[in-house]
């Protein structure tokens, strides 16, 4: 498997009030290969989300580099970096962040619209994705009319609309009940089986073992990086 993401001595410090600074990532060096399903775990404040946003081109490291393929992400202009996020990255968040005034289908097509793709093609792809996850009947519904599990599935479709190389998921099951969590995880696994690389942050240690690789962060440093125990086993 070829390398998709490489962090080299990535450090991220936040300047706090009264001159105090917080180190969210400390000299992190790791690489993620295509097709991996990487779970990132660690206690609150360990730098999991910061790692995700740093890989996603939204949090410039104060030290070190982040490469996406051969591209040094933070050497790009903000505009080129935005284009990279549009075309090659998908994002999914704990609180879904669906736009309340758009239908499911329109929410799914937001990244395609941002990418300037033809509206008709975007809508067709959106319908296809929603159909694949069993929400074909809900395409005209607004987010408020869906269950939380359904909302997260819509958010997943949105992250996949531009056929990204890497899916970045920040606690995507944090707001879901057990059943919905399993459903979303199945979808992630199915996408991973189709070749999508996933970097997912979670608090749930059992869930974390369902990926192909587990990275544990503590105080901004990688303290564990190993294959998952249940790798390849469906829950």
């Amino acid at each position, binding site marked *: 498997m070829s390398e998709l993401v490489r962090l080299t001595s990535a450090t991220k410090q936040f300047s706090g009030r009264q001159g105090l600074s917080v180190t969210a990532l400390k000299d992190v060096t790791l690489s993620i290969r295509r097709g991996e399903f990487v779970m990132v775990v660690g206690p609150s404040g360990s730098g999991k*989300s910061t790692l995700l946003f740093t890989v996603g081109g*939204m949090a410039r490291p104060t030290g070190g580099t982040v490469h996406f393929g051969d591209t040094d992400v933070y050497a790009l202009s903000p505009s080129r970096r*935005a*284009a990279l996020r549009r075309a090659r990255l998908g994002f999914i968040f*704990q609180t879904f962040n669906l736009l309340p005034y758009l239908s499911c289908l329109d929410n799914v097509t937001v*990244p395609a*619209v941002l990418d300037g793709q033809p509206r008709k093609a975007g809508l067709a792809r959106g319908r296809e994705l929603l159909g694949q996850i069993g929400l074909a009947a809900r395409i005209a519904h607004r987010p408020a009319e869906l269950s939380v599990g359904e909302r997260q599935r819509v958010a997943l479709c*949105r992250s996949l609309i531009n056929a990204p190389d890497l899916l970045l998921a920040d606690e995507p099951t944090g707001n879901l009940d057990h059943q919905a969590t399993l459903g979303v995880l199945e979808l992630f696994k199915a996408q991973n089986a189709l070749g999508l690389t996933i970097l997912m942050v979670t608090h749930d240690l059992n869930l974390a073992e369902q990926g192909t690789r587990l990275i544990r962060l503590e105080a901004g440093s990688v303290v564990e990086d190993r294959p998952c125990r249940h790798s390849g086993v469906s829950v």
Partner: protein
Amino acid sequence: MFVLFLRSLQHRWLESLLMTAAVALPVAALTVQRSLSASTEEQIHAQAHDLGNNMLVLSDRTELADHYALHYDDSGMPDLYPERIASAPIGRHIGWVESRLGGNLGLGKEPFVFLGIEVAAGGRPQPSLPKGMVALGPTASTRLNRGAGDRLQLNEVDLVVGQVLGATPEGLDTGVFASLYTAQQVLRRHGEINSMQLAGCWCSLDVPALAEQVEALLPGTQALTISGMLEAQKGTIAQAKRYSRTSLIAAIVLIAGLIMALIASQVRRQVREIGLLLATGAEPLRIVLQFVLKAAIVGVLGGALGHVLGRPITERVASAMVGVPLPAPASLLVPTVLLSGLLCAVAAFLPALRAARLDPTEVLRDV
């Protein structure tokens, strides 16, 4: 992106409507104020143009403003005054005298101005409309449903319509024009006039001194020279312009402040939406454009709405308050709309820039 923008605008239609109204109200007030100011100036110039370098003689109970506000009151003076001027020593300086008697007439619910005019040159009356014949302004003709050759009865006096005027003096569309004698019959004010206009070659004369002589010769009158009148009204124009400038600045500050505050409030309430768009690859410039464009649309619509509201307010309410016709100049529409749109766009720029600079990692971080 434009689709998203339209959906967002549609979703927040009430807010957008309120923003438009917030822009429209100061624009409407400004339109009325500008019209008042411009109209005051136009009226003064029109009066000066109508009167030329002449002298206007009024009953001393008549205000000039009332006279030109087309509200003719009951104050009057004898119509033998022109003869008295012609026979006095000052008569040699007077080229011609125009005597007028005006009054308001109501027929049913329709108001008309009945105006009798007689011009005398060298002491002798010049032929004008024959007795019993009237000329109608276009609106008067329409409202009375009378044309040339038709008969008409006003205040029990039988009249014949001699002609319908295309353009009427002093904008009196609802005017009914007649000879002085006919006006006195219809208005039942026999032997009266309520103003005189004296014209002559004054270039080598002391006109204010001549005006004093006219007043001494005709007790109960006031003689106004146009130069003196203009001098007095220059102050009015200057003050109107000052008010106009001040209100323009106040409206600009008010609109800019409102838009800035409202857009800033929207940005605060939409941080997650903006963060999501930034995270999924929206360029910061697009975020700026989204808010600036929204403000510009609100500004253009508000400017147009304000102008639309301002026109009837100017033409009806303000005209009724001031007592003179105040047409809202149509030429203000395009500059008003452009200025309003531009102003709102500029005012929205700072909060829009803040939106574009939001850190998605902060606003999307789930607590």
